[in-house]
């Protein structure tokens, strides 16, 4: 019965596709974030909450 059921479960390509999509996406984000010359921007960005104009 279980074997019979399992033969319907043939969509493994979706699993691999999911993993592939994610991996490419992740590498993309990494490259993007750790590009050269971006330090200055990030330095400014991280100060945003601290420079929000009022003490409240």
């Amino acid at each position, binding site marked *: 019965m279980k074997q019979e059921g399992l033969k319907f479960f043939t*969509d493994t390509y979706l699993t691999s596709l999911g993993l592939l999509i994610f991996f490419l996406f992740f590498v993309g984000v990494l490259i993007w974030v750790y590009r050269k010359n971006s330090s200055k921007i*990030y330095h400014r960005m991280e100060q945003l909450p601290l420079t929000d104009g009022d003490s409240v």
Partner: protein
Amino acid sequence: MIWAGAAFLFGLIAALQLAYWPMNANLEWITFGRLRPLHTNAAIFAFAGNAIFAGIYHSSQRLLKTRMFSDVLSKMHFWGWQLIILSAAITLPLGYTQSKEYAELEWPIDIAITVVWVIFAVNFFGTIRQRREKHMYVAIWFYIATIITVAVLHIVNSIEIPVGMLQSYPVYAGIQDALVQWWYGHNAVAFFLTTPFLGLMYYYIPKAANRPVYSYRLSIVHFWSLVFIYIWAGPHHLLYTSLPEWAQTLGMIFSVMLWAPSWGGMINGLLTLKGSWHLLRTEPLIKFFVAALTFYGMSTFEGPLLSIKSVSALGHYTDWIVGHVHAGALGWNGFLSFGMIYYLVPRLWKTELYSKKLLENHFWISLTGVLLYYISMVVAGITQGLMWRAVTPEGQLVYPDFIETVVRIVPLYWVRALGGGLFIIGFMMMAYNIYKTIRKAPKAVEQTSYEVQRTGFDEQTQDTHRKLEGMGFTFSVLAFLAIIVGSVIEIYPTLSLHKYVNPANIVEPHTPLEIAGRDIYIREGCYVCHSQQIRPIASEVLRYGNASTVEESMYDRPFQWGSKRTGPDLARLGKKYPNLWHYSHMIDPRAVTPKSIMPSYPWLVEKNTDFLVLRKKLSVMNKLGVPYDSEVVANADIHAQKQAQEIAADLESNGAPKGLAKKEIVALIAYLQSLGQKGKAQ
């Protein structure tokens, strides 16, 4: 905070009910099955929800350097949300439920939620549009992802066809419904209890410590990986069920991958405090943030662990999961909210906190409470899990009676209730502290508004990354795409259900009376304690019978697979016991199972089954594709009454009172007796 108090109180009562069954008080409105959804909804949507909104409204205005888009929308959002909470608090105890965890509310309230959420979204995106600060700080990203994803989740999961004013059947059935529900359920945790709180963390921790976040780069990687991965992980709630294997594997892999971004976020938060640890002495509220992050780290370590198939086989259906959830909810969401409240209230009312000493006490008492709760539940869960699976060398169950495994953990339920009690005491200290703080505040505070310069808009953008962070709309679309890819692949098996159904095993749909009984089963929240899904694990097959198949639940709307076994599984219950056994079991569970902790359901013998509404119910089912004869639909009530007479006659001949045919108990018995009896290949 009122809702938080309510949520904690309901939780405590529910905990006591498990430890001591007479706490159910024979009252239908507060029986565990109805109280538990009320507790979870109050905790997630009332307490956490309001904390999130408060934090988002406060921090966005400061990060975007502008006032909210529209005060009217803000007010509508606030009051609308409170009304939704109120209607939930009324309908759930009355038994109006869809029996889908964290989505129990019935269709009119679902529509109201959608409307209010859209109001919130318009207000928020309007604010982004008129911002004076071009750069969107990472907290804003988390808020955007939250708003978009919750909208998608809520709408997709709530597609249903109304049967009456307060009842509906979902368009999905069986594995479809289970998967959509857990895609929703898991991501309610992700996008209601995680991403908004992470956004709050990225704002309030740097504020409280007065230093920038440890690594802004890390926070970006954190954001994108979290948003992208989380959405795939839902199927880990359905490991070893009749969900297709590849979908289970997908859910498991992505859950394990979640380890990395979650810990990245936690480390980022904790390292922000690097060099500010002395603040713990002068600004004790930071303790709450540190504890919250620690609990976040712990829960997100445990989550992927639990979604590994072999660990899930042990932990699933046990109290381990309950412990895990509460470490997250009380430790992470609770402590972060408390820290935020302690930070906000004195500043908003322009005064000092009434008592730091009280805050310290709140912290330590609550921490002890959470730890007691967590440890007792994990111990209970593992104990029970191991007892369920214990098999002798001869291949027999060591503990064949389910009740043995329950009796063993009841003392731990008391420890849990004690932990919950401590948490509430701590919370009351906070309530008092905040009340005194507000009382102390100067009465008339002049409204000051700040003129802020528009910044960032004139800068030359040098590269694409900068542009992206400046474009609210494009950014939102990208975030939407990130969640939708995972969703589509995950939901694919539900849309192609026919591929997984073996035509040789097609089952019969439920009879009209069984449908009536099923709706009572749902109303009483039986699914909260009883599962209907036997996993293909040796000990379970020994205990309950053949493993569940896709076909068995193919017409079940909503699915009733359950997520916790406080009582035994019911998937093969039908015809196992005589009707009278079921009758006694509902009226006085201790009569058939001594030491049982199940509540009594005396009102089932008093209330009448609504036979007339069955025509409508069956016709809706028919529309949804359940193959009923048109004759059965048209005469549903007559068919049901006939079957009810037979069961009542059987009950009577075995010594039960006369004239039960019209009563709800008979319909419920009909349903229970049909479980596991429908398939051709049993």
